[in-house]
């Protein structure tokens, strides 16, 4: 049997894949897997499309953009496994942070408003637009950054300049003053802080508590050709995620990821956020954030259709998805919670029985009834206090007022009634 080839990008949140291989979870489920280190999301997309990879760690927006036909290849992908929640952050340069502080920056939600005052001041004095970088047009980073900016009263398309910079070049770009801030995954925020080049202004957790991050996606053709192989893969990943998420294993996760074939980075750099000790600024003490990375708790691996619809709603909100589509049907073409449930049942892990959940209503931990027992869930608040209901995306989008999308919402409503 030829080995299964899965791609990954050297980021802390490829942890579950690395653990599945290094701790023998793939082998335990009869799988021969080769992990292939890739340098760009575009490569991962193209290699999966032509069959050079069978699947890969992907940005959650990628299988959805393919299903909506708005990425350049539009080769069908599907995911039945979310790799993690949270894990990203927005870091700004020291200079910008000082100006934001003078303008009242304290917490993630007040920081956006402080940035707005800095931008107003820049406009009055005729200074160029601030530049922020993210990692890919269909990335959660793009949507988080835009969400946070808009929540602070900033128009991401007019008041700042957004640009794509690959993660390994982020810190260099900040150092050379080419950008004023970025939204990226770990360890790049920690590295900017360690090198005293920037300050974390908001974490992904603070923008949307326990929000979805990467997924493991396969080409649809491959997944449908061998359903049992896909199930074995899901079973191995669920068990690997349980191991990865356990607090007592996090130091070892950092050790596993540090080696050259994964992140090729100092273990101490990775250990901070992975063990839930996050440093926001070079002179600040580490803050306890046990949920900075969530790899399995809170049903983290479940591919919620409502998460997929939220991501599609962002594509509409920011003009990437310009023609009206049936959002629920598009989400279901790429997200397969049914396949996850089947694998979870086989390994005795409780799984949600519903495909949708409302977002922005739980301030505290709560319990969700599931197949195989109740599941402890985390909070799910947005930084601007909004509520998202996947069955009323049109109402949700209309609620943004001035920041509402260009799309004809009546036409969107007709397809989503």
């Amino acid at each position, binding site marked *: 049997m030829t080995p299964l080839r899965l791609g990954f990008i050297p980021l802390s949140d490829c942890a579950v894949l690395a653990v599945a291989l290094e701790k023998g979870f793939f082998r335990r489920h009869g799988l021969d897997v080769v992990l292939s280190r890739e340098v*760009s999301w*575009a490569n991962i997309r193209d290699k999966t499309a032509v069959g050079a990879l069978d699947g890969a760690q992907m940005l959650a927006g990628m299988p959805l953009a393919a299903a909506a036909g708005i990425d350049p290849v539009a080769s069908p992908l599907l995911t039945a496994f979310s790799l993690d929640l949270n894990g990203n952050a927005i870091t700004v340069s020291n200079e910008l942070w000082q100006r934001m502080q003078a303008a009242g920056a304290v917490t993630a939600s007040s920081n956006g408003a402080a940035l707005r005052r800095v931008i107003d001041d820049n406009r009055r004095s005729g200074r160029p637009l601030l530049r922020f970088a993210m990692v890919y047009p269909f990335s959660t980073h793009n949507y988080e950054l835009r969400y946070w900016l808009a929540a602070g009263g900033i128009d991401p398309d007019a008041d700042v300049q957004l*640009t*794509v910079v690959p993660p390994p070049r982020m810190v260099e770009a900040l150092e050379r003053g080419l950008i004023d801030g970025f939204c990226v995954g770990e360890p790049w925020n920690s590295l900017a802080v360690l090198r005293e080049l920037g300050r974390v202004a908001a974490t992904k957790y603070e923008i949307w508590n326990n929000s979805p991050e990467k997924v493991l996606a396969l080409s649809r053709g491959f997944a449908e050709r061998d359903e049992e192989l896909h199930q074995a893969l899901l079973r191995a990943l669920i068990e690997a995620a349980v191991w990865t998420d356990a607090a007592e294993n996090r130091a070892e996760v950092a050790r596993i990821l540090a080696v050259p074939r994964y992140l090729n980075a100092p273990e101490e750099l990775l250990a901070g956020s992975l063990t839930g000790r996050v440093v926001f600024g070079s002179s600040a003490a580490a803050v306890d954030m046990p949920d900075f990375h969530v790899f399995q708790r809170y049903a983290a691996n479940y591919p919620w259709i409502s998460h997929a619809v939220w991501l599609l709603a962002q594509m509409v909100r920011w003009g990437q998805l310009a023609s009206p589509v049936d959002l629920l049907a598009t989400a279901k073409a790429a997200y397969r919670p049914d396949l996850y449930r089947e694998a979870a049942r086989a390994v005795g892990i409780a799984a949600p029985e519903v495909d949708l959940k409302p977002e922005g209503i739980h301030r505290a931990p709560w319990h969700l009834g599931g197949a195989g027992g109740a599941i402890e869930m985390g909070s799910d608040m947005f930084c601007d206090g909004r509520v998202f209901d996947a069955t009323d995306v049109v109402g949700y989008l209309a609620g943004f007022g001035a920041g509402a999308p260009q799309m004809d919402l009546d036409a969107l409503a007709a397809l989503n009634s």
Partner: protein
Amino acid sequence: MASPIRVLIVDDSAERAALIEAGLVASGCEVLARLAGRADLHDKLNSFEPDVIIVSMECPDRDALEDMSRITSQRPRPTVMFVDRSDNESIRAAVQAGVSAYVVGGLSPERVRSVLEVAIARFNEFQALRQELETAKESLEERKVIERAKGLLMKSRGLSEDAAFHQLRRMAMDRKMRLAAVAREVVAAAELLL
């Protein structure tokens, strides 16, 4: 005659970039610059105004290039080479060679394809060269180890050079191994006994 296609090359390998440039110039393209991946790629792109960017898939900068639609908003909306979804074979060939192309101006698909064909051919040629170099290095190393094994046999068993070589070859044939592999074993065994 149509005006030359203006190409920008983005590649971390300077040698390969030079090879691609030579190929593109020979086929009538104008190569504006060869850039190694860097954080200020956006600014560079704006100052050169290429029609096509040829990028090595080994550069992480592909993700930045995909986002060009916003930074080049004054010009026609750029498209990625892969936009032609019917063209699966050239996508496969490009991915396998490790090359991708981004179209910035309003070039016809035919002209893009011809640029890409040259690039793919050159990428493959570079790959072959690298392979050849590896093989040459290996055979040099193999010749050396065979010589050492021969010397060891001559000394330990008092054989002539010819007889030592024949013995090595017979061992290889009996055990269905390559000559160099047997020689390596002989050397390793001798080192163990010393």
